């Protein structure tokens, strides 16, 4: 392939014109500032070495992706930070329109109003869903959003301690720990009643004693239980001077008292459950919001879009409070975050509009109902859900001796992905994509391999 289809000027004629304008004879002269001794002397051994043309690329990619049999969405029951959720094709179409897909962060607001409006709508829709006044334009994922919420708490409350619920996903714990490590801050876990999943005297005691800057509360629990004592917990957290950071799966909120109403100072969520593809775990969407408080706002990480007017007094949108951000404030910035997840935020907003208020509620009810059936399926096979007396939403965790081996056996035999494996337990989830038959199949598969 002499000319590369992605390089418009890759032809001798143009090259020569341009070199002449620059005033050099050979393109090598462009790179004379690179010392000879560090210039590459060899051809890089990458790709297929020779360039592949489009037909060859398609053939190769088909081989690569086909090596994996397709797993239908409804055959996936794995829980954790990512779960099977329905992605409307119309959303995929809209976010893949080039004006969105290939845009930069909207620094030049006047030529980016559509993108800014879409993000402003995302912020507003999430604010309504969580019942909180400010939601930023998106973080990488739920885990990093929790980590940033922790750092935000520490900036305000100064005590380098964060308390987290023991039922947070391990993946989240690990990310928070990494971020706290940077600040030499410590992580404290608090626990719940083993049967009901509700808080206990010990839970309160721990917070009272440690006085962490922030307390991360999962509501519903990452392990499933919808804790009735969440409001009480938030009140206790406030009593001892900590900030309440509530992590909520947004798919659950249409049927719960929202975390803002419960008194949370900071809300966090993972937007994947509002209909992003799983894509092997990326890309995701961290939802991060705060109540309307000057200190919180000044310390908020991430982009924020606000409404304003233009020179003619016409309504317009732009990025606001950029003085918090790295490109202005450098080492004093509230975060280093630059490229976040705009496109996923827009996708989530589109899905919310497609569902509408009623549709979202129906969807949450269906997830609740399916989770109930999933729990029954487990019980039927002699497997006990952790916090068995609680009402579970979406996720259910349970002990298994060797989840990796057993899980692989189920995948092999039943062509379903039954759970996400952890060291000695597993998390399954039921969502809006499943129906009775799917859950029966799950039950059969679990029974065939795991029955106790």
């Amino acid at each position: 392939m002499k000319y590369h289809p992605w390089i418009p000027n890759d032809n001798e004629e143009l090259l020569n014109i341009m070199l002449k304008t620059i005033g050099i004879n050979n393109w090598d002269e462009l790179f004379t500032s690179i010392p000879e001794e560090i210039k590459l002397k060899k051809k890089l051994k990458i790709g297929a070495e020779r360039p592949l043309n489009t037909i060859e690329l398609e053939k190769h990619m088909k081989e690569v992706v086909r090596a994996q049999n397709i797993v239908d969405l409804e055959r996936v029951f794995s829980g954790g930070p990512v779960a099977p959720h329905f992605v409307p094709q119309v959303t995929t179409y809209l976010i893949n329109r080039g004006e969105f897909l290939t845009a930069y962060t909207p620094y030049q607001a006047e030529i980016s109003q559509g993108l800014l409006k879409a993000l402003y709508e995302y912020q507003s829709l999430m604010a309504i869903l969580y019942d909180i006044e400010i939601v930023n334009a998106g973080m990488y994922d739920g885990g990093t959003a929790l980590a940033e919420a922790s750092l935000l708490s520490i900036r305000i409350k100064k005590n380098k301690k964060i308390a987290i619920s023991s039922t947070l996903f391990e993946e989240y714990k690990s990310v928070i720990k990494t971020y706290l490590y940077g600040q030499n801050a410590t992580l404290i876990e608090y626990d719940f009643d083993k049967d009901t999943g509700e808080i206990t005297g010990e839970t309160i005691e721990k917070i009272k004693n440690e006085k962490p800057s922030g307390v991360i509360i999962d509501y519903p629990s990452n392990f499933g239980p919808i804790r009735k004592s969440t409001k009480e917990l938030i009140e206790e957290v406030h009593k001892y001077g900590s900030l309440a950071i509530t992590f909520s799966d947004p798919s659950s909120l249409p049927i719960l008292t929202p975390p803002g109403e419960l008194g949370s100072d900071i809300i966090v969520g993972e937007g994947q459950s509002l209909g992003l593809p799983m894509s092997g775990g990326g890309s995701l969407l961290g939802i991060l919001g705060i109540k309307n408080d000057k200190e919180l706002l000044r310390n908020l990480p991430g982009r924020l879009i606000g409404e304003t007017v233009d020179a003619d007094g016409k309504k317009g949108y732009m990025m606001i409070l950029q003085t918090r951000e790295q490109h202005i404030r450098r080492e004093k910035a509230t975060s280093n975050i630059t490229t976040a997840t705009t496109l996923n935020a827009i996708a989530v907003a589109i899905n919310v509009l497609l569902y509408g208020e009623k549709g979202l509620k129906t969807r949450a009810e269906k997830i609740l109902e399916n989770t109930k059936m999933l729990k029954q399926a487990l019980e039927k096979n002699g497997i006990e859900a952790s916090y068995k007396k609680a009402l579970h939403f979406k996720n259910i965790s349970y002990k298994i001796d060797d989840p990796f081996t057993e899980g692989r056996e189920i995948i092999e035999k039943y062509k379903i992905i039954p759970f996400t494996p952890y060291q000695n337990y597993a998390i399954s989830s039921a969502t809006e994509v499943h129906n009775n038959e799917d859950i029966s199949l799950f039950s059969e598969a679990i029974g065939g391999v795991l029955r106790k």
Partner: protein
Amino acid sequence: MSEIEVVRHYTRFTEESYGVDNGPVPLGSCTMKYNPRIATNYVNSEYLANIHPSLLKFETAQNILKLMYQLQEWLKEITGMDACTLQPPAGASGELTGVLIIKKYFQERGDTQRDEMLIPDSAHGSNPASSSMGGFKSVRIPSDEHGLVNLEALRASVSNKTAGLMLTNPNTLGLFEKNITEVTKILHENEAIVHYDGANLNGIIGIARPGDMGFDIVHLNLHKTFSAPHGGGGPGAGAVCVKKYLEDYLPGYIVSKDDNGRYFLKKMSKSIGDVYSTYGNLPGMIYAYIFILSYGSDIYKVAKYSTLNTNFFISLLKGVKGITLPYDEKTPRLHETVLSFKKLAEETGVTVEDVAKYLLDNGFYAPTIYFPLIVDEAFMIEFTETESYENIVKYAEVVKKAIEIAYTNPSELKQAPINTSVRRLDAVKANHPSTLKPSVKFGRK
């Protein structure tokens, strides 16, 4: 809302947006290039969309693990490093990863007094911000009269408190740090670590490698250099590659291959932990994978044509009134350049922002302005290899036209933009506590 209403709502929004598919987006250090649709198609296919991350954890999705393994290998070859993680979800996350690796490395060695991170004054803001997130104090290293790291100042700043240096090369001025081996030597002699900010890799890819310059850590932006789309601000995709002695510190899981050719996930022994909830942004990796396959060892063409394009643009503006090219005028800029519009501002009152807004009026996205901070009225521009001759010529003409107007009727430029869907926005109102409005819900409680 019904589907058609949603479609129309967002179709309208896209029509009020602007991306590489609409024209040049020549933001310096942002490397906004063509995002091949062949990759978009695979990213959106159910083959990938329906893969739950647990399939990687179970190691049943061997094809995906293999793709990730290959990508790790290729990125090692491109950067001249020994190991890579694909977990960081963006460039800044890669910076934080590098910073935490540095932190943990010294902690493991008991070398705990090293709490300073050296950062040149021309660096991206995310460098000091990442350094702070790692708990380091940022020490600013001034540039010399050539726009390069001031070696004397560097030597003076290095001490047994120095943990590392974060550097991009070519730097944000588009100048190659020609003393780079000396720079890394100074750090290494002091047992400190050098982190390479991959934002500007596009200018040297296939021509020179950070690994060969002495860098210990490299972070890459798959959504810049490797053609994954920017998406209006993400999702991006990062990668961090390190020299052998830092391999054990990498976050996330590294895809490895066993003797039977089976791919498996490996947690590193001294790992800093996880910087993301999963294994990274697979869609971004797919773009990078296809991008590399498309070029193979011809990948140097990326650096060749991005550098050619930007220097061609500089030549077109040579000698134009009001504009200067700070620092060594004769040295070709590698893939990006910073012009100064200080003279124009002094002589006409027209700022580089006014010029930027005039560019919008002419259907072009504006370059980065007011950065780097060491250049007054900075106009930081980067034409990637996917920009066409015609557009670069037109772009230069619009800039010249703006300058002509600035000297004849400056107030006209203060009015710009007039052709966009809104005119210049009121930033004071947008940011003022009494008029702030970040959501429809705000102020209603």
